[in-house]
């Protein structure tokens, strides 16, 4: 496949949930669009393959109400997205649009969560959730015996949970049927501007040129976007190691000017249980396979993606306080994941400085946001405006001219 030169209208670098979501929207809007998605081998660190699949709007972003609204908007559009994907891909994606719960331990935590929700209500004008008492929690999840310390929960009816890997697969299957090219197991070594409306992507399958480029490569966006940042200090040390496995965690790269960092999570997975959790509990969530994923940590450890027993055991200990019966269940596995976290924790949807044909997408919560990514970002990628909720989510807020 070397030196196999190809041309596309749009190339999406990164075949995770964000890249697939916008690629799907782009293909849906224009069936003649020649679009390619380039996805790296699975051994590379991939946030889209390590997450729980929560559709989570609640109790977030008091200081950025538009981002909170953006999440709620995505959850509202999710049923329609899944219906479309099912029709095209023929894949049934398990989902529960049954709301979501954040359990609280002790009175102080209950009060603290309640205060936050009260402020969110004020900031957003309306908010589809509230604190519920322990007895209300028990009536929502009657098959779970909660620990003595559980005082109640934060409840939001707009939340839910989707099978994230099947969402992923349905997007990929739909895209192939819509005529998109998905280049699997392909490394992107670098991207270059030929001018400001033609780009060259150097890949393990040869060079690819395109008119518009979408960088949805998660943390690797720092490297790929670096060509557009003038500060030469940011553009050093970009050589690619020859051995793929040396590059598992990207540690050798300087940040290319994009204000994002790796936010580490690590989770425990229990054996399969009978179905007991029709409404997802944040922090210990039953999956559609019957297993329970336990985890809630946010750690800043660069690209260290090892599982630390002391850290996951804290998560396990918390889960037992919420749901003591888990103590009798086996732990099947544990795994880490690196969330893609903008420095101010708000999504970045932005053209690069002087490159209106290049769009960077960098956000955590890419499952929750998939529906708005598919629906609203394509217009911006093709030269239009961002949705009003997202118009302040460009790199301008970090001082870049774009």
């Amino acid at each position, binding site marked *: 496949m070397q030196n196999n030169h190809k041309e596309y209208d749009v190339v999406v670098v990164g075949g995770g949930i964000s890249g697939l979501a916008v690629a799907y929207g782009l293909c849906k809007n224009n069936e003649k669009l020649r679009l390619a998605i380039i996805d790296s081998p699975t051994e590379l660190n991939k946030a889209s393959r390590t997450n729980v699949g929560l559709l989570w709007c609640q109790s977030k972003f008091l200081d950025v109400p538009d981002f909170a609204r953006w999440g709620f908007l995505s*959850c*509202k559009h*999710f*049923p*329609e997205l*899944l*219906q479309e994907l099912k029709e095209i891909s023929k894949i*049934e*994606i*398990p*989902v*529960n*649009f049954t*709301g979501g719960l954040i359990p609280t331990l002790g009175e102080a935590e209950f009060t603290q969560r309640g205060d936050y929700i009260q402020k969110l209500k004020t900031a957003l004008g309306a908010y589809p959730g509230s604190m519920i008492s322990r007895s209300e929690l028990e009536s929502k999840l009657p098959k779970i015996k909660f620990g003595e310390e559980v005082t109640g929960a934060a409840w939001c*009816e707009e939340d839910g949970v989707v099978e994230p890997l099947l969402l992923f697969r349905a997007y990929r299957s739909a895209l192939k049927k819509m005529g998109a090219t998905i280049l699997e197991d392909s490394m992107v070594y670098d991207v270059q501007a030929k001018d400001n409306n033609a780009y060259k992507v150097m890949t393990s399958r040869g060079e690819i040129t395109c008119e518009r480029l979408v960088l949805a490569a998660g943390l690797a966006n720092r490297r790929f976007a670096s060509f557009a940042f003038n500060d030469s200090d940011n553009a050093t040390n970009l050589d690619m190691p020859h051995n793929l496995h040396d590059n598992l965690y990207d540690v050798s790269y300087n940040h290319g000017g994009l204000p994002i960092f790796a936010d580490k999570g690590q989770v425990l997975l229990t*054996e*399969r*249980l*009978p*179905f007991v959790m029709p409404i997802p509990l944040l922090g210990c969530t039953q999956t*559609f*396979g*019957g297993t329970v994923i336990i985890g809630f940590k946010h750690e800043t450890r660069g690209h260290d993606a090892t599982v630390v027993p002391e850290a996951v055991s804290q998560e396990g200990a918390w889960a037992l306080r919420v749901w003591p019966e888990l103590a009798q*269940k*086996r732990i*099947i*596995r544990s795994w880490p994941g690196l969330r893609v976290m903008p420095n101010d924790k708000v999504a970045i949807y932005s053209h690069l400085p002087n490159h209106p044909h290049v769009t960077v997408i960098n956000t955590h919560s890419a499952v929750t946001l998939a529906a708005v990514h598919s629906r609203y970002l394509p217009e911006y990628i093709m030269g239009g405006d961002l949705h009003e909720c997202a118009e302040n989510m460009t790199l301008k807020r970090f001082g870049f001219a774009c």
Partner: protein
Amino acid sequence: MSDTVKIYVDEKMMEVPAGISVAAAILGHSHSHNHSNDQSRKAFHNNSMDASPRAPYCLMGVCFECMMEIDGEANVQSCLVTVQDGMQVKRQLNTEAFHYKNTEDDLPENRRTNND
């Protein structure tokens, strides 16, 4: 030392080679507890969510498809346990399934597509 040991699977005695795993022992005897063409009778357990019949897959402790009750302890990975004389093994057959619902009628009203 004997070359074989006696284990009891669903209370039926099986004489099996010593030193092998419970999963291997039962796979080796699968003909003897399967008297019909019904595939479910070959199951080691039924999946806790969809009740589908499951049997050992990876045989190295990763997939959890070989779970059975061993000496009174439920959900043990039988591929990781060596047979012992007198061991009591029970298959975990439970046909109660959960089917997730994903139809328009199950959606909250504000999220039905025909409500836009």
